[in-house]
């Protein structure tokens, strides 16, 4: 296949996807949800077909454009309805409360003790009892609320201590 034509096709496909993705108001990859993941998988297969001319550009636009429209409609629905949000993204899961593991939450998220310890270490925590609440969010990030006594000292608090000692 002519290399120049592959280049032209790749360029046009890239420009279209960039414009469509920007128009749809896509969030960052770090905030990707399960729905975004499914969309990315399907889109990557469509892009492959388009780049190697297995389908015409018009068919690629029709298929990917329809997916973008579905994505925008899904996000409009989830912003208006809590049920739609849960259906499309799942629910956050409590995996640790008051230093104790929540077995049902860990089971639902298919996490074992090592996984939990790993996620906590990523937050700079090596002992569970430091945690008041740990929630696995829908984007698979762990949100941690520490016990008051284990929260990092703020610069304001440090200043107050310095003032008291002075």
């Amino acid at each position, binding site marked *: 296949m002519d290399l120049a034509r592959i280049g032209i096709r790749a360029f046009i496909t890239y420009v279209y996807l960039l414009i*469509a993705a920007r128009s749809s108001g896509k969030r960052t990859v770090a905030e990707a949800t399960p729905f975004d993941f499914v969309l990315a998988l399907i889109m990557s297969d469509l892009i492959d077909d388009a780049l190697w*001319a297995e389908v015409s550009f*018009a068919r690629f636009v029709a298929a990917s454009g329809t997916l973008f429209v579905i994505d925008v409609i899904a996000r409009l629905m989830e912003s208006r309805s809590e049920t739609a949000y849960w259906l499309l993204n799942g629910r956050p899961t409590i995996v640790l409360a008051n230093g104790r593991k929540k077995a049902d939450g860990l089971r639902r998220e298919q996490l074992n003790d090592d996984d939990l310890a790993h996620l906590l270490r990523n937050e700079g925590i090596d002992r569970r009892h430091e945690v008041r609440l740990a929630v696995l969010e829908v984007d698979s990030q762990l949100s941690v609320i520490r016990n008051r006594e284990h929260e990092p000292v703020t610069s304001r608090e440090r200043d107050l201590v310095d003032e008291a000692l002075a």
Partner: protein
Amino acid sequence: MRALAGVVLSAAVALGIAYAVVEVAGDRETLVSPPDAIAEAFYRSIVTRRFEPAADLLSRRSDADRDALRALADEIARNDGRVTDVAAEIEERSADRARVTVTLRGERSEEKRDVDLVWEDDAWRVRRLDNGN
């Protein structure tokens, strides 16, 4: 709603550009599948016995029916064994006709087949199948 309008508008503009490039500028192989890609896809479908997608690539003027496609798959399997690779190369091309040579590499042997394609309904389609040589 603005996002929805933006996505629909970008798709409409892209389709308009594709239409202009194909219909007005006469593109036959950049924003559409070129004849060699169609011929290759056709034979890949045949050798994997997916006759439905193969039939979709046939021209309205083709005289090949599903039985003919099945017979073609059987014949290739008899000649070459299981086909492991399909490659296509354009031999001749005009605005609305193309001739492509498809090479089928099988476990037992390799054969070349000529495929005539015609530009029909904004796409290249297989018009006539040659016997293997």
